[in-house]
């Protein structure tokens, strides 16, 4: 199995993702520059965090028009696995691979801290090695993580079990204080209808080693690697 980490001008979590795939998943991984259009070598593609194109116009917007994203859309349509983290989630929403949008945090602050995130479904290629309701400690670092969508989209996401992660308190409760950025119904991550595209604001790639404060993110990569091993 081979992984690609997409690199835009302004990506800054690309090396973290690369490190996790090469060191912890133990699989081959390439950086893929945003002008690249051939993704045929890859089984899974990671769209990393950062500030692609300086967040100009809207977060993720200019990246969504880049040549590589046209290929990512085709890759996803063929069933390829796509994981968008933070700015990667914003890019997936802007490109239409995931519904909704991420707007400025409710309190306007850039939020950079470890948060509690509840696993809402294990029926995805990215979470099947986790437990339903499990609370993960993962870092966030964003100013635009406030997930919005219309009622119809929300009903669809909810009804199809596509809300994958929610912000919660340490016990897994959903009190108002645990919704750190104002996201609709605490949404921290969603997947596509085909379940092969996941977007999430928290950073699992920055939480794969205890010395970084948490290794809870490793379950996401363990799940994805197991999925790819089973598919091949």
């Amino acid at each position, binding site marked *: 199995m081979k992984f690609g980490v997409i690199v835009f001008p302004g990506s800054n979590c690309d090396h973290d993702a690369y490190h996790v795939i090469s060191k912890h998943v133990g699989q081959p991984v390439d950086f893929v520059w945003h002008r690249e259009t051939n993704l045929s070598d890859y089984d899974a593609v990671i769209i990393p965090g950062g500030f692609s194109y300086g967040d100009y116009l809207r977060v993720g917007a200019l990246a969504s028009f880049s040549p590589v994203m046209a290929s990512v859309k085709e890759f996803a349509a063929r069933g390829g696995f796509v994981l968008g983290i933070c700015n990667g989630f914003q890019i997936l929403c802007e490109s239409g691979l995931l519904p909704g949008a991420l*707007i400025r945090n409710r309190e306007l602050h850039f939020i950079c801290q470890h948060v509690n995130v509840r696993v809402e479904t294990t029926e995805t290629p990215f979470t099947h090695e986790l437990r339903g309701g499990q609370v993960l400690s993962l870092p966030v670092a964003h100013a635009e993580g406030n997930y919005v969508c219309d009622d119809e989209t929300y009903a669809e996401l909810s009804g199809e079990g596509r809300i994958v992660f929610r912000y919660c308190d340490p016990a897994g409760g959903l009190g108002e204080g645990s919704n750190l950025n104002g996201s609709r119904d605490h949404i921290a991550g969603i997947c596509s209808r085909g379940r092969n595209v996941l977007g999430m604001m928290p950073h699992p790639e920055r939480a794969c080693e205890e010395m970084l404060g948490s290794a809870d993110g490793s379950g996401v990569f363990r799940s994805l690697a197991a999925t790819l091993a089973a598919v091949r």
Partner: protein
Amino acid sequence: MKAKIYVTLKSGVLDPQGKAIQHSVALLGYDGVADVRQGKYFEIALDAALDETRARATAERMARDVLSNPVIEDFRVEVE
């Protein structure tokens, strides 16, 4: 020809920046400010050879496909 494009948040979408500005102007003593919504304004110079119909069509397409996100924003186009 010039296209002027205004992009604004849809009415139901929270605008935390607008709220912060409203709070600031209230602190400065401006009263009677019921609400503030922040948006974006683009001026786009178009080829003089385009007639108004084509200029408007181009500007509207750009506004829809690039300059706004239909999930959260509306736009208005003026061509002159």
